[in-house]
């Protein structure tokens, strides 16, 4: 724990130093960047491409996966693999996107890349039918189960009011870099599942969430750990979810969002989904807790059209 914290701090300090050196750097350095924003964007939105292509472009705009992963680090990629559904059903994250993310992680020098989700349906079948197990393995990722309590360890959530303690998958505790890859969907009770809601898949007792103020628990979890990067898959979105019951509910939006700020991502995603931000309670709670910023006007958004 201590060592990891040290590395994280050291790394973020280095990143800050790097950014500040760029901002005050010579015109020659800035001229190399064709974009008008010299600062790294807060949120990157990409559209009109395949999930892989959109990710390639999106992560490039961030300065590559190297900005997030240093050589030899372990990475955990957490897609949404909740339901037994084909990729067309849009209930689970696009497998091709997961594969491309894993490839970028290894490209940046990651020593190991883990992929898992605490599924709602039978785990082994869901991993197989979603296509994610196969895709991730093709990119040499280690696919890990999360369907038994012994994978989880109890942690304290600092500053939480409702979710004081939570059992978290051991890989979230152990891995150096945490990448969250939700798929944007309508959700029957929280109205939308995206960046923040996707993190319910790293905890054991979801019944506790449901029993004890669902939205507040969702918003409080990142007080324990925030993903280092969140990639929202809005290529195909499900307008009557979270479970895929009919292909008629799937709409192709051809979009992808990347950011470190899950609250900002959820606000932007709610607009793609066409859901009122005020109706999604966890966004406001997350903003108030300082998990992220829900005022998109205050953010530096880079929009890329392919």
């Amino acid at each position, binding site marked *: 724990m201590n060592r990891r914290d040290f590395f994280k701090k050291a790394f973020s300090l280095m990143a800050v130093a790097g950014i500040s050196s760029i901002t005050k750097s010579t015109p020659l350095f800035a001229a190399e960047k064709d974009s008008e924003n010299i600062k790294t964007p807060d949120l990157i939105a990409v559209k009109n491409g395949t999930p892989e292509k959109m990710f390639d472009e999106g992560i490039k705009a961030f300065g590559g996966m190297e900005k997030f992963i240093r050589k030899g680090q372990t990475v955990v990629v957490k897609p949404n693999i909740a339901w037994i559904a084909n990729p067309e059903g849009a209930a689970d994250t696009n497998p091709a996107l997961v594969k491309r993310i894993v490839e970028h992680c290894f490209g940046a020098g990651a020593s190991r890349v883990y992929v898992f989700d605490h599924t709602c349906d039978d785990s082994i079948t869901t991993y197989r039918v979603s296509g994610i197990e196969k895709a991730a393995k093709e990119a040499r990722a280690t696919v890990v189960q999360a369907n038994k309590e012994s994978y989880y360890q109890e942690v304290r959530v600092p500053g939480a009011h409702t979710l004081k303690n939570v059992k978290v998958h051991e890989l979230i505790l152990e891995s150096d870099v945490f990448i969250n890859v939700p798929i944007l969907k309508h959700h*029957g*009770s929280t109205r939308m599942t995206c960046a923040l809601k996707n993190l319910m898949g790293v905890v054991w007792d979801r019944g506790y969430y449901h029993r004890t103020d669902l939205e507040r628990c969702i918003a409080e979890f990142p007080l324990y750990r925030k993903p280092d990067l969140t990639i929202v898959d809005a290529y195909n979105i499900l307008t009557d979810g979270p479970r895929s019951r009919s292909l008629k509910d799937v709409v192709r939006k051809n979009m992808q969002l990347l950011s470190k700020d899950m609250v900002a991502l959820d606000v932007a995603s709610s607009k793609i989904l066409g859901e009122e931000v005020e109706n999604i309670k966890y966004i406001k709670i997350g903003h108030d807790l300082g998990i992220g910023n829900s005022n998109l006007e205050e953010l530096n958004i880079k929009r890329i059209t392919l």
Partner: protein
Amino acid sequence: MIKGNLKLLRVSFEIILFAFIIFSFFRFLPEKLKAITLKTQIIPLLISFLAEGFFLSLLLFVLFMLLTIIFGRIYCSFFCPLGGFQDILIRIKRKTKKITKFSYHKPLTLLKLTILIFAIISIISGSLYLIGYLDPYSFFGRIVNYLLKPAIVIINNSGELILRKANIYALHIMTLPTFNPLALTPFILILGTIIYFSLKRGRLYCNSICPLGTILGIFSIRSFYRIEIDKSSCTSCGICESVCKAECINSIDKTVDNSSCIRCFNCLNVCTFSAIKYKRPIKKKKTDNKKTQNLSRRNFLYSFFGILGFSGINLLLRNKKSPIKPYLPPPTPPGSINLEEYISKCTACYLCVNNCPTNVLQPSLFQYGLKGVFIPHMDFYSGYCSYDCIKCLEVCPTDAILPYTKEEKKKIQIGTVKFIKDFCVVYRNNTNCGACAEICPTAAVTMKPYKGLLLIPTTTPSFCIGCGACQNVCPAKPEKAIVVKTNIVHKEAKKPKRKRATQQKEIKEDFPF
């Protein structure tokens, strides 16, 4: 006479089929292959034919009977997994002890016939339970469920833990089967008998208790091919008798009791003088054959009273069952049509229990009453029936769970949803939940506006298939706020009308932010 190394043929066949039957209880094989593997088991074929009139089952059953008439009880040594289990025990004993000698014993005709008649009477009175419980395949299934599976789970899970410590995630954690002391008692008693018999007296279980062994024995008394001793070249050295697991060779009289002989062919290879052979017998004087059928008058009377006694018990059970039950039993698996049919066909082999990916199928105790004791039931506290899964329908060897297709299964309503608002988290705590609606595969449970931003479940029971997902995930404590009410007779669920697609596909819109 049949030439070649028959023992080698028997042993290889037995090992391969035995392995396939064991694999059928685990994830290794595709379900279709499992179903084919289990088409080799006579009692399940018989039940499938008697109850469902399936022509294929009849055909295979007749085929097995013909094989028995031609070759004798080859089922017992080639096909029977419980026989394989006993052969392993006998082999272990032979390896550990220097000498294991079997010796001739008179057949236990009285006991054999009594048990068989009990079983037949119970079939006639409409219950396949006794023959199902004593069916060697089904009993072997219980051995897998209660002995082999726990052993494999423990080894697998400790291996998984060690590998995980080394960051290797190659194994999956498996779930231990549930144990109930009451269900285990008769199982352990019979298992103890089998183990004791096989270590002391070889295949005595097959020649005393097993009703299938008795039936096949009757058919093989005069099978076309029999084990015969050539009296002129036999020296009565007794070596064949000492290796005979069925204890049916009398080396002094130089006779073989072909109704007890399980056709293991161990005797053929040991005879120095080639005096013992598997061949078509030469016509002999009638007196010789008469000896094997010793159903005396006393036996007949004994059996007769046995039948009377059993019918009495059966009638009593019937009368007990008839009044309407004060509670609803748990639902039966989709494809079992109704409770009555399911109970009458299931032999509690637990193949479905071991193949169920969500562990919703669990051995019951008295949930289905005395007649359905131990057979699997749907337990929505331990799991729920996966919408896309038809594993139990595909594997069930007795067709107690009929092999409907996936699309048909998705419409079978084994129960209907019942929402109890007073227990619901939304009503009690005024916080959102929706766990039931999110997991519902059929839109039988959806959320409707309640107070402010709150949403509360609402149900349409006619859409419900009774999969129990909502009951399983409902986080309300101590009582579940949503449960499944059993349909004793399964119905067909209605499909919800779908709204038209919300928007046209493939839209090139701009970012809405």
